[in-house]
């Protein structure tokens, strides 16, 4: 394999990766919940209890900008990163390794 061939392979793989990645959520940083003042937020423990009751297995949870970000396994068995509204505790966005599994309307 000459240098040009390995570079062509690099370009092809990058192209394939980019083509497949076109539907992924590169805009994760843009997720917002418009949750308002923090004194109105429900506690993280309340969210965890709600999620556990729904069948989620939680690995880690913390506030991220104006949302709650939770890492864990969904009731369907997918390992995901999810964003929740801190006041309504509604699910806003669920991502699996960059792929959007759920996005609130």
């Amino acid at each position: 394999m000459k240098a040009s061939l390995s570079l062509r392979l690099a370009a092809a793989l990058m192209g394939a990766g980019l083509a497949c990645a076109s539907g992924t959520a590169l805009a994760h940083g843009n997720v917002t919940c418009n949750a308002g003042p923090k004194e109105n937020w429900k506690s993280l423990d309340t969210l965890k209890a709600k999620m556990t009751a729904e069948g989620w297995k939680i690995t880690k949870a913390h506030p991220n900008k104006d949302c709650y970000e939770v890492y864990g396994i969904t009731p369907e068995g997918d390992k995901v990163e999810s964003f929740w509204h801190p006041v309504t505790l509604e699910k806003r966005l669920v991502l699996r390794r960059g792929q959007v599994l759920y996005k609130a309307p």
Partner: protein
Amino acid sequence: MVNGVGQMRSWRRIANVALAVLLALPLGLMLQGAQQEDWVLADALPPSGEAAALIMFAAMAIGPLARLAGGRSEAVRWLMRRRRNIGVVAFAYAALHLGIYIVDMGAFDLMLAEIGAPGIWTGWLALALMALPAAASNDRAMRFLRGWWKPVQRLVYPVVALTLVHWAILMYGWREPLVHVAPMLALYAAAVIRPLFARKRTDR
């Protein structure tokens, strides 16, 4: 003269220790991060992957740096002799990254469920391709592979492409991977462009 050789030896010894410390630093930082109260294993995934990529980019940057320096600098010659080891350390971090991923996932079916995600298959393929030059980074493999040794080493180019896509998808943006790869790409570009200008000057 003897004093000069002695100074050179101590310079190299210090440089060797500094390089070893530098290469071990990401591991140290990961272990330090693990002491935090809310630490989970998945927190070690980004730093281990970043260390693998950065060290690989650094190893790849040595070649064009040597071409630009013309091989005269003792420091560059020293770096050239350590390039292979630096590349192997990059692979070791990549293997650690995979190990952390496997343990964190904890179940084969969970891994299988997401293997088709672009952020994941790019990582698997990058590591599989990286394993070949890493395995060939010794004198015995060099003698065995002969003319094939260099093509095997050049598999790092597709590995870089896959790494950038993997990184951009999983860390949700291009800025971070591109900033990290830019110095290496700039050195490659400079090493390609400089001889063209040198040729033009001699043509006149």
